[in-house]
């Protein structure tokens, strides 16, 4: 039997069957969590933001139109929640980030060098300005299509590509700096 589509489930939520949101949560909360975690660098904040996003989906269900696609709509809400959180915590983000990097390194990899590299990549990502981190997170992990990212960020496809390239370049510089490597 074919699974009910995301959009159909969200339309059911909009129509008053709030239980359908539980199915959407099961399908998408892990992906949304990873996005929030990469944006904030903090597990507890990422979980709060996922919870906040799903509750806002319930609150703003009327804004889900018949022709809306769930994932971009949901990410739009999640993105606003993330950006608001980052604005609120802008002053003390750095110390929290440091603390979180420590807590993120609980399960050692088979090769200790992998742990080091993962941690440096995470730290480098967190050191990027929010706008560049966002375009990189969206294009590297979340969306295959530039059109979707452009719609989410409200800019052109060309602008997404330029931003992604600049973000990658800056990430590389930060990574090399943190790793103590000499650029090629």
């Amino acid at each position: 039997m074919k699974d009910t589509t995301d959009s159909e489930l969200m339309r059911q939520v909009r129509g008053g069957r709030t239980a359908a949101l539980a199915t959407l949560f099961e399908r998408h909360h892990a992906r949304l969590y990873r996005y929030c975690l990469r944006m904030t660098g903090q597990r507890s904040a990422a979980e709060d933001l996922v919870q906040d996003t799903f509750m806002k989906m319930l609150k703003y269900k009327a804004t889900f139109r018949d022709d809306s696609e769930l994932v971009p709509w949901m990410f739009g809400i999640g993105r606003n929640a993330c950006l608001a959180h980052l604005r609120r915590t802008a002053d003390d983000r750095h110390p929290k980030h440091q603390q979180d990097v420590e807590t993120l390194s609980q399960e050692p990899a088979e090769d200790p060098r992998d742990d080091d590299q993962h941690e440096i990549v995470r730290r480098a990502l967190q050191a990027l300005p929010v706008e560049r981190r966002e375009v990189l997170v969206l294009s590297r992990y979340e969306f295959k299509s530039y059109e979707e990212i452009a719609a989410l960020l409200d800019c052109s496809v060309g602008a997404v590509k330029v931003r992604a390239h600049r973000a990658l370049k800056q990430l590389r510089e930060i990574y090399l700096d943190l790793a103590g490597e000499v650029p090629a």
Partner: protein
Amino acid sequence: MNCDETPALVIDRLKGVCSPADEQRLTAHLEGCVACRTEAAATEAIWQRLGAAEVEVPSARLRARFHTALAAHEAKASQPWSERLLASFWPQQPALAASFAVALLLAGVLAGRLLPSPVDAEVAALRDEVRTVGLALLDHQSAAERLLGVEWAGRTTQAPEVVNALLERVQYDSNLSVRLAAVEALRAQMAQPGVSAGLASALGRPEAPLLQVALADALLASGDSMAIDAVRAVLDTDELDPAVREYVETALMGLDAANRQDTEA
């Protein structure tokens, strides 16, 4: 093609969306341009490193919190389960309903006489113990435990210390879900002294728009004039979230319209 076009095509290639024609152009350019080839290799290396980071999974606590919040939302939107249960077996005909009520009354009186008093004392002691455990849950370090505490508090008889503990959760809890659940639990206790004032004092804090909406909703639903005035006052706050402002304005307009209709009637 020239070097300016390379970065975008390199990103396309890394994302796997490069067309065959562009792939061919890019390959040809990179073969002849050392600078672009070096840049493309470095870009690819950091792209791969980003992808190699292990996949994080959320804790089971997140699921529990979500389902608690969803249940709270549904409970608010629908009739209480106790009323539904009662309605399912309670006779519809007045004569039968009256007979049923008398039978229940007699059964209650009989059960009360049969129960020995030491058991009452034990039950009272047990209730005290449960209350102590419940209050401890409300103050627990873990948000999930505090949510359980709020759930217990919502179901139990509302002693003043339980109400105060819930108000403290609304005001100071670091976790939004706990705060929202505490507001829901207090909705049934709005007539108790200090509840409206406690919720109103939390309303002015702008850091959690969702909480402000829940607080405004609870205060307006109480029908208490001081509570409604407190909601009106929040509109004067400069840093009020636009969504909260819209919600409060709409709710107040609805309330005012309803009041006008009552006056005219």
